[in-house]
Each structure stands twice: as C-alpha cells, then as structure tokens.
C-alpha cells in the first residue's frame, strides 16, 4: 500500500512538473530556426483522420506528448522517400536520448498500391518506431490539401509514378505546427532545429 501511494505521489509530482513545463510553453510566438522554415503561424494538419496499418484511427492528437514529424510519400518512390526516412534515422541517432521524443509519421500518397502490409514493412525497415498512415483516395486528397502538400500522378506506360512535396512537417508536443524541413537539409541541420522545437515545448 505504502508503495502504491508513493508511486502515486511520484506520478503527481511528475504531472506537476509537466504542468510547469506547459506554463513555460510559448504557443503563439514564432521561432527562429537555423535551417528550416518557421511554420508557427500556420495551421496545418489539425483535422486529418487516417488509419495505421493495424486499422486504428489516427489523428494528430494521437501523438500528443511527442514531437511528430510528418512526411508524405509512397513506397515505390525511388529517391526522396527512402532518403528522407533514412535521414530521419540519422536525425534520431544525432538526437541521442531525446530521440524517443521524435515520432516519425509517413503518410502515403498512393493508397491504391501501398497496402497496409507493404507500408508497415517499408517504414519499419528504417526504424521500428516509425508509423505509416493511409486513407482512402478521398481522405488522402483531403489530408494533402490540409497540409498544403502538392502531389500529382504521372502516367508512365502502363503504370504511374508520383510527383510530390518533399517537406517534413514538425509539431510540438501540444500539436502546434512549428517547423518545415526541406529535403535539401542534412540530418545534422534537421536535428539542430528539432532541438529548438523541443526547447520551446
């Protein structure tokens, strides 16, 4: 019993500490990043509703308490998708013990071909903690629109490929959009800016 109480007290203490941190949060102000684009004044991706490969409904608030980094792509993408996910792996290595706070989210723009099984295997080949999300064609279009993500099917013989925005969108732990990371940035540059997001919240 005593043990339990103690644990409760500890939990309460942690919560209070958490509240303290929240009070310190600056939710309105803009941030200055060394490399990426400050997106603090933009409201994007607040209301998307997609599914993870296990079929669970996922929204932005599902990731509250972590620092979500959202990237759009498709598994048959030869260049920007694997390199961005590989960069995310490097970023996590550079972040050291703070890496667990970063939640990498890959949203497919090609739900017709990216089955939940392929998607799950694909992102987990990079890092077991990465999450893949997908929706119907309509949900995908709606989500991309909500993020201001451009994508376009390019017919190629009997098949097609996709052109798409290669930006990674980063939210703070309360779901406020903070940072846009261009594909041209290195893992080190991204990690530096992500630490700035963490300092704020």
């Amino acid at each position, binding site marked *: 019993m005593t043990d339990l109480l103690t644990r409760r007290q500890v939990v309460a203490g942690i919560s209070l500490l958490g509240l303290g941190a929240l009070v310190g949060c600056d939710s309105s102000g803009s941030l200055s990043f060394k490399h990426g684009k400050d997106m603090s004044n933009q409201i994007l991706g607040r209301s998307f509703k997609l599914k993870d490969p296990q079929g669970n409904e996922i929204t932005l608030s599902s990731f509250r308490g972590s620092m979500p980094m959202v990237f759009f792509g498709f598994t048959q993408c*030869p260049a920007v998708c694997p390199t961005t996910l590989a960069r995310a792996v490097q970023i996590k290595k550079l972040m050291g013990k703070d890496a667990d706070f970063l939640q990498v989210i890959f949203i497919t723009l090609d739900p017709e071909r990216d089955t939940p099984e392929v998607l799950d295997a694909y992102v987990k080949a990079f890092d077991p903690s990465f999450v893949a999300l997908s929706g119907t064609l309509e949900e995908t279009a709606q989500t991309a629109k909500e993020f201001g993500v451009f994508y376009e099917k390019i017919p190629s013989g009997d098949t097609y490929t996709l052109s798409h925005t290669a930006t990674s969108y980063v939210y703070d732990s309360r779901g406020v959009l903070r940072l846009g990371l261009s594909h041209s940035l290195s893992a080190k540059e991204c990690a530096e800016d992500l630490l700035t997001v963490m300092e704020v919240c």
Partner: protein
Amino acid sequence: MRSTFANAMVAKPLNRALALLMLLGAALPVAAQTVVDDAWVRATVPHQASTGAFMKVTASSDSTLLRVESPAAKTVQIHQSQMKNDVMSMQPVSSIALPAGKTVMLEPASYHVMLIDLVKQVKEGDEVPLTLVVEDAKGQQERINVVAPARALNMPDHDHMPDHAHMSGHMHME
C-alpha cells in the same frame, strides 16, 4: 541468366579494367565503348512493386542510352527526378544523352532506372542483372551487361545528393 550472372561476378572496380581489356582485345575497330560503374539497386520490402537502379555511365563517343533491360522486373523505364521548391517531380524520359567522355550519373535525384512490377523481392546483397542498350552517333548499338548489387533500403545517401543533383543539371534530355 547464368551467363549474365557470371559477367556480373566481376567486381565493380574491375569494370573499367575489363572495358580496357575488351578494347585491346577487339580485333575489329570498335565504334564506341560505354563503361558502367558503381551500379546498385535499392532493396525492397516484400510485395513492394518497384524500385530504382542507379549507376555512373561514361560513353567514349557521343551516344544515347536507349533503354535498360532486366529479368528482375516486368517493366524497366528511365525516369528523371527534379527538385523544385521542395517538390520532387518525376517523369519518364525516352532516352539519356551520353556526351563523349562525360560521366552521367544515374542517381536518386536525377536520371534513374525504374524496375517496375518486380518479379520478386529485391533483398540486400542480391545481384540484379541489368543490360544497357546504347547507340552511338553512327547508329551502332552496343549492349552492356552489368550486375547491380542491392543495397539496403534504408541506406542513407542523402548527404551526397545536392552535389550530384548539381552535376546532373548540365546533362541534356533527349
């Protein structure tokens, strides 16, 4: 298949030497020779339908890469990626110009070969046979067989991309 695989057993650094030997050994005057270096394919996860193949191609005289063939996929196409305003755009191209003596990079951020509708999963370490069909200015065609090892899907090659993208900017599209 067997013979193609045997060809490919030759390690990458030997490609140039091999090409030289072939040049020396050829009794007839050869119109053009194209050398392929550092070919690789990105490994896939099960049921992933397509992937990319990348390499450096250098032709001895002005030539054109007409197409690439491979038993690893039902369809093989040449695509070009271009990054503009952080949008990566893709498009199929009919051929790639190979200016004499100039190394043309086939890489993720530029021209690359797409292996579409893969026959089976490409696993890290697999050797994927590729045949490049190159035509010189006189209309003579040569077929170059290479074997591209599959590198891990999660191989980080991002940091090399900006330089190469810059270089490929000078290449021309047919």
